[in-house]
């Protein structure tokens, strides 16, 4: 089954129009045209007349859940989500950052999305092995079936196979390139702290200059803060102007968390985030 982006776009427009006209929501988080067709932008439709500007194509990779926390609580919002994005919404609900009843989730079952910078298909890297949203009120199209289902952690194999020296060299090289533009945290739907720990002067957790020690501190701590919360949308890596594959590290931590605590991030709104939770019978083996 091929994905018809036009059809999704049409669906999206129809539903957005209905929601805005009925006053059920005051804004719709969707995609709009950027400076050309290959570069769509996140778009906020507030009036029925805005709906015409909504687009959807294979380059609409942005995870719109990132914008949810920008609006005051109790704002009625409709949001277009793909599979991974829907997990971000679920995770935000778990964390009480947004209320389920304030949201109309427009689920988009889709595959074959492409990185607008490189044209590369992102499915195998960062969709968590999912094509269908885990949470939606309205599904814009048919559920995707028959696509190859791979483990979200398959891409890790090569990195896990490295010995520690290789891994160290790899991350030194990758993180050493970081220019501390903080696009990763800003693109991340789960990074809603303001200020971020690294911006703090008291305590000063790490150096602000883009050199290895500060970069290491920033990224490792961020990986920890996102442990059990990262929903594998891959936005951090796509946002990165110097192409640091942050998603690999996040994936690895997500994998470990899933193995240790038996719960993946953003799969059910009833879950409690794993690092603010415990089980009395958690094994001490996890510390070995």
């Amino acid at each position, binding site marked *: 089954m091929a994905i018809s982006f036009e059809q999704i776009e049409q669906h999206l427009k129809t539903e957005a129009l209905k929601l805005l006209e009925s006053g059920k929501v005051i804004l719709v988080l969707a995609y709009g045209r950027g400076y050309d067709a290959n570069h769509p*932008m996140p778009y906020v439709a507030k009036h029925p007349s805005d709906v015409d500007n909504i687009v959807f194509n294979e380059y609409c990779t*942005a995870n719109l859940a990132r914008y949810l926390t920008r609006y005051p609580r109790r704002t009625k919002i409709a949001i277009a989500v793909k599979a991974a994005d829907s997990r971000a919404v679920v995770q935000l609900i778990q964390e009480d950052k947004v209320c389920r009843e304030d949201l109309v989730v427009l689920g988009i079952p889709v595959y074959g999305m492409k990185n607008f910078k490189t044209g590369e298909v992102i499915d195998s890297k960062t969709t968590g092995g999912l094509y269908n949203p885990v949470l939606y009120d309205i599904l814009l199209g048919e559920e995707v079936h028959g696509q190859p289902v791979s483990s979200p952690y398959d891409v890790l194999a090569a990195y896990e196979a490295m010995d520690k020296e290789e891994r160290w060299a790899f991350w030194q090289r990758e993180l050493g390139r970081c220019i501390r533009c903080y696009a990763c945290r800003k693109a991340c739907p789960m990074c809603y702290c303001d200020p971020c720990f690294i911006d703090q002067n008291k305590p000063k957790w790490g150096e602000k200059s883009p050199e290895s020690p500060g970069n290491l501190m920033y990224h490792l701590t961020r990986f920890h803060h996102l442990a059990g919360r990262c929903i594998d949308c891959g936005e951090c890596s796509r946002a990165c102007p110097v192409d640091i594959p942050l998603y690999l590290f996040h994936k690895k931590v997500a994998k470990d968390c899933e193995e240790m605590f038996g719960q993946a991030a953003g799969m059910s709104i009833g879950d409690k985030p794993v690092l603010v939770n415990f089980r009395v019978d958690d094994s001490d083996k996890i510390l070995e």
Partner: protein
Amino acid sequence: MLKKTTIDKLPELAACLMEKGTLVAPVKEAGGFNFRAITDAAQVDLIFHNTILSPKTVFFPQTEDFVRYSVYQPILEAKPVEPEIRPTFLFGVRPCDVKSFEIMDIHFTRTGVPDPYWRKRRDATIIFGFAFDTSEEADPAEFYHTLGIGAADPDGSDVFMLRRDDVLFLKAVSPRGENLLGGLAGLTDAAPDERKYFDDYIAQGHDYKTRYTCVDAEAIAKEFEAIFHNTDFWTKVSNACLSCGICTFVCPTCYCFDICDETQFGQGVRRRVWDACMFTDFTLEASGHNPRTQVYQRLRQKICHKYSFHIRKYGPISCVGCGRCTRYCPVNIDIFSIVEQAVQAKWYKRM
């Protein structure tokens, strides 16, 4: 005097320059191209469109150490860090980026207290401008032409270069360039038809259209002044903005920095590090007050600074249309589209 060499002999030219000083040239890295101090002549790679970070990094590195100090010692015992300045060859700079140095000079040397770090580096550097390849289709993110900069403008370069297949032409533009080029071994003189090709190429540079509009700085400054308080407009254009620092960090004309003290075991260094007006804490005051807490306020500041305040204060638009901010924006915000919309917004308002 037009000289030439071939792309495969580039390492020889590089080696030659490296003998005379520091060579900074585009290098291919995992994330893309960047200007780096060359340690191995073979690193120099001219088959690139443009770098991720602008060449401002050469004069205004992201991190610059000012003072080394020992905590608990009197401040008078702190030692200033003298930058190590060597003759530098900045190789392969696109014309729009060359233009940016002129704009940055306003801030670092021509107004207020001159910045010794910028000035010393600038004085010690010979710039090898490098024309865009006009046979390629224009990058949709770029708009230098719109701002009156040609794809092959030699202005501001000491030596200007262009590539024709595997031949690299070099022409001295300034007396410093002339001096240097004359003493470089391994270059041959170009043939007359090649000289004509070179001149034509430069002339036609202005026909290489990046966007369609032509901009009148004064008019734009006015438009932005008129819509400064139009919150709806600014909110609308900033809805997608993530407030990250990419656009400012890659920008050749952004010059904001923060001063940080980094101390360990009592030994510290006071350094400046790039800062970005898009960061929430950029305007955070010690009192806790922050005049720009909203995304729209920050985006407005950035755009108005470049397209309005800067014109009023210093004359030129503080933008060279290199398109980096647009190209690397994770959500495809296009600064020039906002400029276009600003004009319309004004117009709508008048109606």
